[in-house]
């Protein structure tokens, strides 16, 4: 029998082709090569440094020498529960909660419109409108808001022209959220937080709503549900993964931010500012680490509760 070389198999090829052949024969090798760099980055550099910081929270600082004592202790965590520190945690969590809730309420109609009705050019306008604020510098936006909210700012000016200044004055006279002007009040901090994080809420809700076929809402109405009932029993449960995803952003970003409350708001601290001050100014790294642990723990609890509530069932 003679050996016949079938003409339709090409055996030629450079080093690139041979490499492709090897990867084709060993698909796992390809996956390993693709995953190795991000795995190293995430695993060693990112998570590693995070754990190195968090480990510090189990040490304490010697208040005479100002040096870190490398002995396991929970005393740093005990400091967190002191009223002055616990106030900071409580204030930040309440703020993050209010910001997330308000963002969700404002985002839902916008996202619904974008998902159901915006087509063609309108869709482009929508994405541009949502994304454009993200292109400009974070600091520029915050200082712009300072100009809007300041006592001599355009908001006060506009209300004066409308003879509605008394509304603002009455609002600023409220305890806790009020203040001398909006730019130095907790309400001002809240307004800017909501503005800055809003795109992070709109986009996931919109993505979730886009996956809800219109026939599903029609079916609900067909079966006797009023629009309010359809919202409660069909639209909201199906959009919930998006709301949860968005609120993970708004909640965690608010928990960790230290710039907005520093520029707009009162002198009362938020967690981010406390971490910044304890680490940078006071040199109390264990306490800074313990503060940094708080948002992580809260987010863990939050995700666990969201899962228990079935927020991810429709995924």
């Amino acid at each position, binding site marked *: 029998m003679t050996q016949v070389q079938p003409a339709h198999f090409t055996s030629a090829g450079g080093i690139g082709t041979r490499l492709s052949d090897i990867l084709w024969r060993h698909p796992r090798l390809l996956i390993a090569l693709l995953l190795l760099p991000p795995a190293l980055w995430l695993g060693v550099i990112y998570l590693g440094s995070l754990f190195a910081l968090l480990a510090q929270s189990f040490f304490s600082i010697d208040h005479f020498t100002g040096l870190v004592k490398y002995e396991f202790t929970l005393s740093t965590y005990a400091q967190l529960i002191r009223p002055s520190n616990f106030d900071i945690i409580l204030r930040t969590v309440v703020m993050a909660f209010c910001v997330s809730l308000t963002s969700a309420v404002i985002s839902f109609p916008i996202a619904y419109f974008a998902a159901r009705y915006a087509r063609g050019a309108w869709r482009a306008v929508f994405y541009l409108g949502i994304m454009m604020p993200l292109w400009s510098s974070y600091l520029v936006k915050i200082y712009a808001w300072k100009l809007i909210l300041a006592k001599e700012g355009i908001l006060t000016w506009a209300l004066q022209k409308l003879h509605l200044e008394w509304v603002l004055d009455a609002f600023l006279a409220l305890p806790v959220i009020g203040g001398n002007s909006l730019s130095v009040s907790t309400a001002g901090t809240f307004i800017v937080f909501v503005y800055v994080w809003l795109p992070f809420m709109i986009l996931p809700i919109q993505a979730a709503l886009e996956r809800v*076929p219109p026939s599903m809402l*029609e079916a*609900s109405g067909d079966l006797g549900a*009023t629009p309010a009932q359809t919202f409660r029993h069909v639209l909201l449960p*199906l959009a919930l993964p998006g709301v949860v995803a968005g609120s993970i952003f708004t909640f965690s970003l608010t928990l960790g931010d230290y710039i907005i409350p520093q520029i707009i708001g009162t002198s009362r601290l938020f967690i981010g500012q406390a971490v910044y001050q304890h680490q940078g100014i006071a040199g109390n790294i264990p306490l800074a680490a313990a503060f940094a642990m708080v948002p992580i723990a809260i987010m863990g609890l939050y995700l666990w509760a969201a899962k228990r509530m079935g927020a991810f069932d429709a995924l």
Partner: protein
Amino acid sequence: MSAVTFNDVSRHFGAIKAVDAVSLDIAEGEFFAMLGPSGSGKTTCLRLIAGFERPTAGDIRIFAQPVQDLPPYKRNVNTVFQDYALFPHLNVRDNVAYALMIAGQGRRERYRAAQEALEMVQLAGYDLRKPSELSGGQRQRVALARALVNKPRVLLLDEPLGALDLKLREQMQEELKSLQRQLGITFVFVTHDQGEALSMADRVAVFDHGKIIQTGTPEDIYFRPEVPFVADFVGSSNVLPAALVAQLAGESRPASIRPERLILGAEGRIRARVTGLSFLGLATRVSLDAQGTRLTALLPQDAPRPAPGDEVGVGWNADDLHLMTAGAGA
């Protein structure tokens, strides 16, 4: 009593006349099919009955009550959607009981009703599954149970069998038909499949370009089409143009003749050339060209078969040639 009445109903989307001055009358307890190609307005008509669309003009009545100002949730009609539209976050039982939950019925009561509805569509025991864990045919049954649990007076079905494979589709056709007989509810059924419409419906309305072209019993539609479109669309009947009919029968009107009624032989009324043969199992389909008019003949399997390119005579019994009332032939 009429279950559904349309009086000159139109639904225009800008310049597109999806439904254009349609009048129809569906009797109570009837199995009514709306048949037509896609974009012919049949689905829009169904959506007008359900209330998902509002008419641009005209008057719609359901059991004599004008409904154009009633939203879907105030109409006693239910719909089986083409994509089933089952709620993915609810299990089968809660999907079926949805209408009863909305109506405020207690848990035990509505679960019992859901149980009965599921038994009716032969899906007992699937209560706790999620829609994503069901096959296409099972989802279809859940959608049916969900639409029937509220005991609507009219059930609307929007191409409900379109996504099923042939075997299942035939089985569901029979089940739907017997379900309708058993419940006595008016069924309005939208389809683009003429076989489905003919085999299930008591009456068929054929749609084209937003208008009803012909309404009648399946036999009427099949054997006595009034216009060439119906003859061609319903079971691909042969359409003889008016000029040819004028030579043969002395009347200048288009005519139709069923493929299975054409007789091929040496003699015949007209001459034609065989352009193709296809084997269909029960019969062989012969494509013919009679001086520019395309004809199709169905030959029983035991009949002698011509070969492509042969010249044959095409004949028929005079009774089988059906003269149409309107529309100029090609």
